[in-house]
Every structure is written in C-alpha cells, then in structure tokens.
C-alpha cells in the first residue's frame, strides 16, 4: 500500500492540490458573499429570516442532486463544483454570522447606540469584535463540509481527491479506494483539528 502511494505520488499530490484549490476558491468567495448577505440580514429581521430559510432549504438538497441539476446550467467541471459548494456554505456561514452578531449583550449595544454610534459603527466596532469566535466557528464548519462535498464533485469532472476514490470504485482497485478515502478523510479531520486549535486561542469576551 505504501509502495503504491510512492509509485503514484504524482497522481495523488495533483489530486490533493486540486482539492485544496477548490477549497480555497470556495472559501474566499463564500466568506465574502456571506459577509454581504449578513450585512443585508442585519438591516432587517425579515430579510434575515428569509435568507436563513432559503439557504436551509437548499442545504437539505443532497449534494449529488444539486451537482447534477447545475450541469445543464453551468456545465461539467470545477467551476460548477465551486458554485454549488459556495451555495451550500451560505447556510453554515450565515447562520453562525447572524447568531454571533446578535448574541451580544443587549445592554452593550444600547450603550453604544446611546452614546452616539451609528448602526455601521456598532456593527464593526462592537458586534464584530465581540462575536469573532462564533464567526470563526462558522468558517471552520464550512471548511470541513466543503472538503467532504468536494470529494463528491469528482462525479462532475471537478477533479480532486474524489477522482482517485471513484477511479478505484470503477476499476475495483483497493489501493485507490483506500488512499482516496484516507486522504479526503484525513484532510477534513486535519483541517478541523487545526482550525479548532486556532479557535480555542480566540478569547471570548464576557462582561461579569
């Protein structure tokens, strides 16, 4: 098995890099989009409820089905995969972002407003720094979920670690199946552990 990995190192390194590329592109766009949607959500309770509801419905669609639905629209390949992954992430990110920003002690928000901060100033100078931990949790969950779903994206020719796994399944090659699963699972577990360590270092402010 080790021997197999060494012999085909070029192949799985390429797949791993493809996987990471999809992850990074997805996460950057997801966070920017979620930040914009969160700003809209903070401006009105109705928009907030609507957005979370819409994305929760989409989130409940199985990923393979959503990948398939998108093929006629945006075709096969990495682009389609990234679009779908971004859409899935919005639910995880939005829910955490909105909860985080709203869980601030109301008396702190009242004081901030009362002494003359505008809504934008309250958002960026008070709500955001105080909810950073919850925001980061959302990003961690989205990273782990993206790594997992990106594996399935190999079905629509997006490449990545899923392609090794599916190759193995098609040709009944045990080595490929094992390495495909190990690498994708390892990446998800590793990323989660790393981000959890960072998250623990973020101090959660509380007023006694």
């Amino acid at each position, binding site marked *: 098995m080790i021997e197999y990995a060494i012999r085909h190192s070029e192949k799985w390194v390429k797949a791993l890099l493809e996987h990471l590329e999809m992850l990074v592109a997805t996460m950057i766009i997801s966070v920017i989009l979620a930040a914009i949607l969160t700003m809209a959500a903070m401006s009105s309770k109705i928009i907030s409820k609507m957005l979370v509801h819409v994305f929760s419905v989409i989130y409940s669609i199985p990923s393979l089905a959503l990948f398939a639905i998108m093929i006629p629209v945006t075709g096969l390949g990495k682009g389609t995969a990234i679009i779908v992954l971004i859409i899935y992430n919005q639910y995880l990110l939005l829910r955490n972002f909105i909860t985080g920003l709203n869980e601030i*002690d109301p*008396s*702190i*928000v*009242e*004081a*901030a*407003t*009362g*002494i*003359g*901060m*505008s809504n934008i*100033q309250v958002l960026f100078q*008070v709500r955001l*720094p*105080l909810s950073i931990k919850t925001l980061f949790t959302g990003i961690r969950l989205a990273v782990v979920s993206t790594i997992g779903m990106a594996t399935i994206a190999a079905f629509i020719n997006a490449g990545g670690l899923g392609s090794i796994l599916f190759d193995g399944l098609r040709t009944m090659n045990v080595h490929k199946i094992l390495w495909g699963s190990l690498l994708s699972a390892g990446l998800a577990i590793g990323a989660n552990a790393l981000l959890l360590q960072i998250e623990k270092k973020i101090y959660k*402010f*509380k*007023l*006694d």
Partner: protein
Amino acid sequence: MSLTAIEFNNVSKKYSQSGDYVVDHVSLSIYEGEFVTILGSSGSGKTTLLKMINRLYEPNEGTIKLFGEDITTVDPVKVRRRIGYVIQQVGLFPHMTIAQNVAIVPKLLKWNKSKISTRVDELLSLVGLEPQEFRNRYPSQLSGGQQQRIGLARALATDPKIMLLDEPFGAIDAINRLNLQDELLRIHGGLKKTFLFVTHDINEAFKLGTRVMIMNKGRICQFDTPSHIVKNPADDFVSSLIYSSREQERFWEGLD
C-alpha cells in the same frame, strides 16, 4: 430665568396601537443647570420618557426640544453625541481597555490623539480613579462601582450639556451607592450641566434632585423641589410615597 434645556410639549408614547399610553401627554420644562430626578415605580414610564430625549424611542405624539431645537429635525446620531448617557447595566465594551472605552466618542468625532489622551486622564481623575492605575485595565478587572464610574466618564467625555442617567446606581451596593451619589453631586456642581436622573429609590431621588419629578402610570403627578413636595403632596400617590419612606425611617429609629 436660565435657558430651557429640555422641553416636552404634549408628548405621548405607546408601544402598541391598542395598548395604554406608557407616557401620557406630558408637558414639562427643565432649565439649564438643574439636577432633575425622575421617581416612579416600574412601568410608570420614567425610562421611556428619558429614552425619548436621545431618540432611542420616538414619541407617537408631541414634540421634544433641546435648547429650543426640535430633536426630530436633527440626525439621531448627532443628538446622541451631544447628550451623555449612562445606564444601569453600564454596558462597557469588554474588548476595549478603560482608556479606549472612555475615548470612544472623542475618537468617533476624530479628536487628535494627544487631546484624547489628556481628556481621558482628566475624566478618570474626575470620577475618582487614578489614571495611571486604570487606563490599561479591562472592564472585567473592575468592581461594579468602578465600572459605573467609567460609564460616567465615558458619558462625560465630550462635555455634553445634558446628561441622561437611567438608574445608574441600581445594581450597586448601599455603601458604594452613597459614595457615588456624593461624587455625582460634586461633578454636577462643578460642571453646570443639566442632569436627568431616573430612579425608583425615593431617598436617592430626594437627596440628588434640585427638583423631583414623580411619575405614575405615564403621567407626572408632581414636579417640584423636594421640600415643596414633602410639604404639599399633590395627590394620594405622592402622599403614599412619602408615607412609606417615613414608615421606614420609623422602623430604623425603633431599632436604635
């Protein structure tokens, strides 16, 4: 007669269409330099009345003027920056140091750094905290009484002409509360500001106020100097308030 700092003209507020008035057609004038305490039980409308002044709540009817200017014609953020605001829960920003908390409004107004720094030291000394010792601490490292002193310093930062205080000492123990009351009187005396102080403690209201406004069910029962109120209570509610306070005194004397 001095300038009218705060003027209410037939102001009403209710929270739902069908509900009762929380503040019921109130008209009043408060002059510059007065220390007015608003006394009432919970639900009397005293906090609502206060929060309409800095536009945290908007009245349904009537007009409110500050120094002759109708506040609905001014951007609420600008109105608030001209008014000091202190609340019972203090609401210090836990992610900022004491100095940063006090400096928040001057920073929003883009004062320069040295001016802000001098002002912070000045304010910390004013509220009785040693600047060198407290500047770089965080709110969680302070006692409740010290936190409220910082809340007071933050509200005074830009030298506002009007200060609104919403039960600021409500959560502070009796000994510290007496100290803070005395300091507040000293600060008011030295600054010639208009203070509006909400409380449900009759002793606090009569001790601090140059005039006391007694509220019940959204209306002002009586608005007069402490000695006038004690001599001529306007209605049964005011009489019963004074009676209950006297009863308590008698209780203490009985223990002696």
